[in-house]
């Protein structure tokens, strides 16, 4: 591992240390990249970067609201002004909304779209010009809802499906220019902070390896990033062995 890596990984949508964003940041810093850890809550970001630094890696926390174009642009401006170049960008932003269709409002629909889909547009719009000269990976975290509008998930699925198809358009436009765009469908419960806080009993119910480990998800992102450009994956699904699907 180099002492001062000039290659950066920018991870949007980092929350608690137990989530996917944090696990990807740890993995990429362990592989020698400087991880820019971006999310809404400065205290959580600090916990993630402290841990990476304690493990001997390099990381910087940047608090930003990814639904705001200027805030996303500021993240890349910082990477550049720090003398680094991003080769890996992950959009891991998203909030699940569960509501009956008749209980939804135009504002809820719009908020779900801004968080789950428009933020991806902003990240791509800033990441691509930054990475075009040297090439790089632009990955999106998807969900079951990216493919399937389940009962009670109209707002979430509309956002996630919109993001997925945007990623396809980007892959087709920028693949030939050296940007590897991939969309990863996480089809199951993630053994992370959110599930522990909101549905505590569920992990026990799912049993051993019945939920996705964030570390294992992060390893898969790294594998995708390592792919040779003659053999790129655009879409990958991940689920636990026991998942009913």
């Amino acid at each position: 591992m180099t002492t001062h890596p000039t290659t950066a990984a920018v991870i949007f949508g980092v929350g608690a240390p137990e989530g996917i964003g944090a696990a990807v940041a740890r993995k990429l810093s362990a592989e020698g990249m400087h991880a820019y850890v971006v999310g809404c809550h400065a205290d959580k970001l600090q916990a993630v970067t402290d841990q990476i630094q304690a493990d001997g890696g390099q990381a910087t926390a940047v608090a930003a609201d990814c639904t705001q174009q200027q805030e996303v642009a500021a993240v890349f401006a910082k990477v550049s002004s720090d003398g680094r170049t991003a080769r890996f960008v992950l959009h891991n932003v998203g909030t699940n909304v569960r509501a009956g269709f008749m209980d939804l409002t135009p504002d809820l629909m719009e908020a779900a779209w801004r968080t789950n889909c428009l933020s991806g547009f902003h990240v791509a719009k800033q990441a691509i010009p930054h990475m075009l000269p040297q090439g790089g990976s632009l990955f999106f975290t998807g969900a079951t809802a990216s493919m399937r509008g389940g009962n009670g998930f109209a707002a979430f699925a509309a956002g996630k499906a919109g993001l997925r198809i945007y990623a396809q358009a980007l892959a087709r436009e920028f693949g030939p220019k050296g940007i590897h765009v991939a969309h990863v469908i996480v089809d199951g419960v993630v053994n992370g902070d959110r599930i522990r806080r909101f549905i505590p009993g569920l992990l026990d119910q799912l049993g051993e390896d019945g939920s996705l480990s964030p570390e294992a998800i992060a390893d898969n992102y790294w594998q995708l990033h390592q792919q040779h450009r003659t053999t790129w994956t655009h879409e990958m699904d991940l689920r636990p062995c026991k998942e009913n699907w």
Partner: protein
Amino acid sequence: MTGDTAKSCAVIVGVGAREGIGGAMSVLAASKGLHVFVAGRTAARINRIVEEIHQNGGEATAIATDSTDEQAVKALFEKVAASGLPLELVVYNTGGNYPSRFLNTSEVFVEGHWRRCVLGGFLTGQAALKIMLPQGRGSIIYTGATASVRGRPLFGAFASAKAGLRAMAQSMAREFGPQGIHVAHVIIDGTIEGEVVRKFMRGLGWLVLRKKGKDGGLLPDQIARNYWAIHAQPRSAWTQELDLRPFKEVF
């Protein structure tokens, strides 16, 4: 004849030219005996369709509506409810398809597509369900496109919005099917042999159609027949998604 013989009604949202899906659908639904509320942005265009329906002896009302405006959609369905006619069929057919190179694409451009496809579809769906759920029956059909399932360069904003609408329709179908409401999504996979292509997109779409030759484009009246077939399905065998393309289309 513009009398009061219709026993039920339909609302067609996103009506422009007669030679488009909305226009064809309005004319067909009226010919089946429904009173048709013809909703579109331009009064002159929807009036022309209502005139044709009246000439054919059918019943129709033109209501100029911006389907992305919550109040306008509310007002449209208040008129429908005030008619006292059971609401059998709602078709949501808006959403312009504009290309843009990604790095030149603005947030406003992306948001505009989302408003026309997803927000308008949501407002229409919810307003329709308020009337249909107490009835325990009715069909809501959304017009999709190739882009609903495939994101191509230049069309990211449109495709993203269309995919969002498709996912929303699926969710609605799963929630409201068991309550008697048939929610379907039709993927139009090809060039429509309609007014949009012939007049406004003279250039790309027009060239495509000319190259494909006879029956290389989808005819709006034929698309409408398929929408009607979905609506007419008995509830023991419902379609949620139907794709339609001309026989020569490469896909």
